[in-house]
């Protein structure tokens, strides 16, 4: 027999109390001399058996009543097979445990995840009290999500640069990375489940000890992947009674589109599995979420002040005043630095001025800018933190600025003297104190022919100016460079002839067979140079900018910033006025056509700048020449701004990520000639741990003279530490050793998805509506636990109570019957 309050089991000794009292009463009897013994003995002989029986029954009923009362107080949890409510021999409890970041909400007594743990304990404890054998399967949603074929892996992760350098642009794990992912091995429950079909012993403490050590992840994950995992298990075990528990916080954001999960519930195999939705979280409360920390500009370099946007959202129901955001800059430029497992960061930590937000309305997203300057190159970290609140997971965000000494830009000038590059060189590197972080290199067209793609990839972008023709090899290099995320800008020259344009039309519009992508570099045909006719009285500016990143600084101005820009000549393209999609003839051509769009037009509606997507890179065509006979734009101040934005835009497709959401795989590619393959990863500190967890990785060869070290959840993480690291948000320090013996660090930032900060809960009415047709029971974890848990305990206690009441009534009747309560009558 087991009891919830085991010490109270000593109370069973009280069972002897009625017997003891009876014996004491017998010992303490009065003695009296009695004359009429014969009548007394006669009565005794006559009633002896009945009196003894009633006395025995009375004592027994009192002893039993005491035993029942003690059992109720001590909360008897075993030996109640006769109370079992289960009709089946084997009961399989499938527990889907939501361990998304919002489950760390501490608004109530303990976190929602701890409440779920309590409910899990109750289920296991209660199972031991019921009839038949019980099996327990526990699957965490984060594990199921990461193991899902939809989840990203290091193999399927696109090369760096395909994602715009924006923490906000990365979506939840496994969503954005679906495109281009290769089919992977379907996850099996035995690889994912924390407990799989484990028999529940009489004392489930040891069984649950491991799962109880887990903490909420930093992921935003729904239970659909876990449901997919248990579906085959339900199918295989058709002879078992299945109870599916979904322990979650039931936030509105997770149930806004419940079609998929509803369908999964409806299609669960088996004989109508009992579906229990267990709500573990408190109601919505005030909460601030640090949505993102991300750099404003695309061009980031050492010594150049970087502006970062810190965004905070008020997910509560009331305005919040005087919110202070603590921003920390961590400088990792010191080459003498060592890994510091006991410190929050191994770099030099500098607290920036606190960002104060005076008021945030409910639901409002407020963004403030912070300027930070890292004088030297390195993988630097910026972390922002909100004051503590019940949900800690969304109170911090960070980004990594992999700064180099300068961003290399290649200017390829068709003129040997480089006269066409003058304007760009002046705009991008003005000299003096104005540091742009850009490093110019000017080469001739032959450089493109003689070099290779790897060399070209050292440049953030390439700007071609007045190149009449290119060698096919140079063209192939350019195509490969762009396809792999490079940015290319093409400016034509004032001296180029029609023959040059025809060469463009023939060579640049071909799909290169050897290239990574078959999209041609030039998606249109050039008809030739044309003059922009100025009509009398026409006041519209010659250049009309579209909504494009390179003109972003000019957005929202009341007057056109290009008022003084004059364009005399431009290049006409075929059917330009109809737009790219309308002139497509078939699907493939249409797809190509949709890949380019005008970003600036002339007042005659002719495109003057065209943005074209090639592979993972961009080609930006300027259909004019930077010559005063064609346009005066280079002399206009807007040219400087647009040039800087153009370089930033073109280089953004290959720039390293600054941050992503937790759970995303991490990878570091490096040259085997520069670094040793052994990598040490310092993971974010875990709560209550003294030192940061450390992982040791061995990079594997990935092509010629390159190595790749990766860290992902996959199906079989190397260890619990690896898994915990993957599920965590924070800064991951990847420490390597160069072949020269120097330590080098690369930081990778992982943040909690800001959606996890939205704590509004779905109403039970909405839940019923969303899951109409699904038979389920919705209850809170408290009710599950206090019911001891569960209905079994309630029923048992209720039955014990009824039994006790019946027994006491029987005892009263028996006592009355034994003349214990009869008033004395005189004869």
């Amino acid at each position, binding site marked *: 027999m087991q009891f919830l309050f085991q010490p109270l089991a000593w109370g069973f000794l009280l069972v002897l109390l009625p017997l003891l009292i009876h014996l004491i*009463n*017998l010992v*303490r*009897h*009065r*003695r*009296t*001399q*009695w*004359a*009429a*013994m*014969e*009548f*007394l*003995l*006669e*009565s*005794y002989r*006559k*009633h002896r058996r009945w*009196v003894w029986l*009633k*006395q025995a029954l009375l004592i027994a009923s009192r002893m039993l009543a005491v035993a029942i009362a003690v059992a109720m107080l001590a909360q008897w949890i075993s030996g109640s097979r006769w109370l079992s409510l289960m009709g089946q021999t084997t009961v399989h409890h499938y527990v889907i445990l939501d361990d998304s970041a919002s489950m760390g909400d501490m608004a109530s007594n303990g976190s929602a995840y701890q409440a779920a743990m309590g409910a899990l304990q109750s289920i296991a404890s209660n199972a031991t009290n019921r009839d038949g054998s019980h099996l327990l399967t526990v699957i965490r949603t984060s594990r199921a999500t990461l193991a899902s074929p939809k989840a990203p892996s290091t193999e399927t992760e696109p090369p760096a640069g395909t994602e715009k350098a924006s923490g906000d642009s990365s979506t939840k794990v496994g969503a954005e990375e679906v495109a281009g992912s290769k089919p992977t091995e379907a996850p099996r429950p035995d690889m994912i489940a924390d407990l799989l079909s484990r028999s529940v012993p009489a004392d489930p403490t040891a069984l649950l000890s491991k799962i109880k050590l887990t903490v909420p992840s930093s992921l935003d994950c729904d239970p659909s992947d876990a449901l997919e995992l248990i579906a085959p298990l339900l199918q295989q075990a058709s002879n078992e009674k299945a109870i599916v528990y979904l322990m979650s916080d039931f936030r509105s954001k997770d149930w806004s589109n419940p079609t998929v999960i509803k369908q999964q519930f409806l299609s669960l195999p088996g004989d109508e599995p009992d579906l229990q939705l267990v709500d573990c979280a408190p109601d919505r409360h005030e909460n601030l979420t640090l949505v993102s920390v991300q750099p404003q500009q695309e061009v980031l370099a050492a010594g150049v002040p970087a502006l970062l946007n810190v965004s905070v959202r008020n997910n509560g129901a009331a305005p919040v005043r005087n919110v202070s955001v603590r921003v920390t800059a961590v400088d990792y430029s010191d080459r003498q630095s060592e890994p510091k497992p006991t410190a929050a960061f191994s770099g030099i930590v500098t607290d920036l001025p606190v960002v104060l937000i005076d008021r945030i309305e409910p639901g409002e997203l407020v963004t403030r800018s912070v300027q930070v300057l890292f004088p030297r190159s390195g993988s630097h970290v910026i972390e922002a933190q909100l004051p503590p609140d019940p949900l800690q997971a969304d109170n911090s965000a960070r980004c990594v600025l992999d700064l180099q000494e300068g961003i290399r830009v290649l200017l390829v000038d068709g003129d040997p003297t480089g006269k066409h590059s003058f304007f760009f060189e002046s705009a991008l590197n003005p000299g003096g104190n104005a540091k742009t972080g850009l490093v110019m290199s000017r080469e001739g067209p032959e450089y493109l022919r003689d070099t290779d793609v790897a060399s070209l990839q050292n440049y953030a972008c390439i700007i071609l100016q007045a190149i009449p023709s290119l060698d096919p090899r140079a063209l192939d290099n350019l195509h490969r460079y762009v396809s792999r995320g490079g940015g290319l800008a093409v400016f034509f020259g004032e001296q180029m002839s029609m023959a040059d344009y025809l060469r463009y039309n023939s060579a640049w519009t071909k799909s290169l067979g050897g290239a990574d992508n078959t999209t041609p570099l030039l998606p249109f045909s050039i008809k030739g140079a044309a003059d922009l006719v100025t009509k009398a009285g026409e006041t519209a500016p010659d250049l009309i900018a579209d909504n494009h990143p390179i003109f972003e600084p000019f957005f929202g101005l009341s007057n056109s910033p290009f008022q003084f820009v004059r364009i005399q000549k431009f290049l006409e393209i075929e059917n330009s006025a109809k737009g790219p999609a309308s002139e497509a003839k078939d699907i493939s051509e249409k797809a190509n056509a949709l890949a380019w769009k005008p970003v600036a037009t002339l007042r005659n509606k002719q495109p003057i700048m065209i943005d074209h997507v090639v592979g993972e890179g961009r080609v930006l065509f300027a259909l004019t020449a930077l010559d005063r006979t064609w346009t005066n734009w280079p002399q206009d101040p807007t040219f400087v701004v647009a040039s800087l934005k153009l370089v930033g835009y073109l280089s953004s497709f290959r720039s390293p990520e600054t941050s992503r959401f937790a759970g995303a795989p991490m990878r570091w590619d490096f040259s085997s000639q520069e670094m040793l393959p052994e990598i040490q990863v310092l993971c974010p500190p875990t709560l209550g741990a003294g030192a940061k967890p450390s992982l040791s990785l061995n990079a594997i060869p990935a092509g010629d003279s390159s190595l790749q070290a990766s860290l992902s959840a996959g199906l079989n993480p190397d260890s619990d530490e690896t898994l915990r690291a993957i599920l965590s948000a924070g800064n991951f320090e990847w420490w390597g050793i160069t072949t020269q013996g120097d330590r080098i660090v690369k930081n990778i930032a992982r943040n909690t998805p800001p959606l996890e900060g939205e704590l509004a809960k779905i109403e039970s009415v909405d839940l019923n509506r969303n899951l109409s047709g699904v038979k389920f029971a919705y209850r809170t974890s408290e009710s599950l636990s206090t019911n001891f848990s569960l209905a079994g305990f309630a029923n048992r206690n209720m039955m014990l109570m009824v039994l006790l009441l019946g027994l006491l009534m029987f005892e009263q009747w028996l006592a009355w019957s*034994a*003349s*214990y309560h*009869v008033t*004395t009558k*005189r*004869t």
Partner: protein
Amino acid sequence: MPDSKEYLHPDAIRRIASMELRARNIVEGFMAGMHRSPYFGQSVEFVQHRQYTPGDDLRHIDWKVWSRQDKLYIKQYEEDTSLRCTLLLDASASMSYGNGALNKFDYAATVCACLAYLTLRQQDAVGLTVFDQRIQSRLPWRSSRSHLQSIYRSLQQTTPKDKTDLKQVFREINETYPKRSLMVVASDFLGGEAQTLKSLAALKHAGHDILVFHIMDDDELDFPFNDATRFEGMESADQLTCNPRALRDGYLESLQRFLDRVRHACASAQIDYQLIRTSRSLDAALTAYLATRMAHMRKK
């Protein structure tokens, strides 16, 4: 003036240690409360006339009446001989039970003392026999006032003990008292009740008038015990530890059957029977005695 019956209550009697004073107090109080003397005069006194019937003794014909009325009437007189009253007091161990003012023996002894006083006051002869399983002491009939002191002394010196064997005792009494007399038996009749009743009937057949005072204590009649009690037999080695309330009904039923048997046996043998609680006053006993005496005298 206080109610004369107050002097008859056991609580009041208990305060009087001397048996003599006790008897005088009771009897005088009892007599003072009576409106008319229930007993007839002393010596030979005319009582009444009745018509002559054949067979009557001619000596009793009142010739003076015959001479005046020419009718024969018989004169009837009071007994001129003294009444012989025998007091039989049970002094067995069971008589010592009592939780009230007087235990059964004290109560019975008081009754006997009172009856002795009353009897001698009427110039009757009274004797006393105290017995348990045998006759412990015996005082012959006497009608002198000094005999009263002997009776008092004998009552005060007697201590209840031993068992009761009324059968043997009554046989001895029957043999000891050949003349017919009024026998007053004060006992609880516990122990061998069947043989006892047979012996009583035998006494009756021997020509004695018998008045039975069945002395019972309140506890014996009501059995008011509540707590666990160890009952130890006063005339036997029986012991019983029990919850008295559990046995109460059975006990009362058994007791009632016993009382019914005694009452029925007395009624069958034309024995006057009086069940007396030790908590009640003694007037019932005295009244019963006088009524029985009158009946006894009429028969004579």
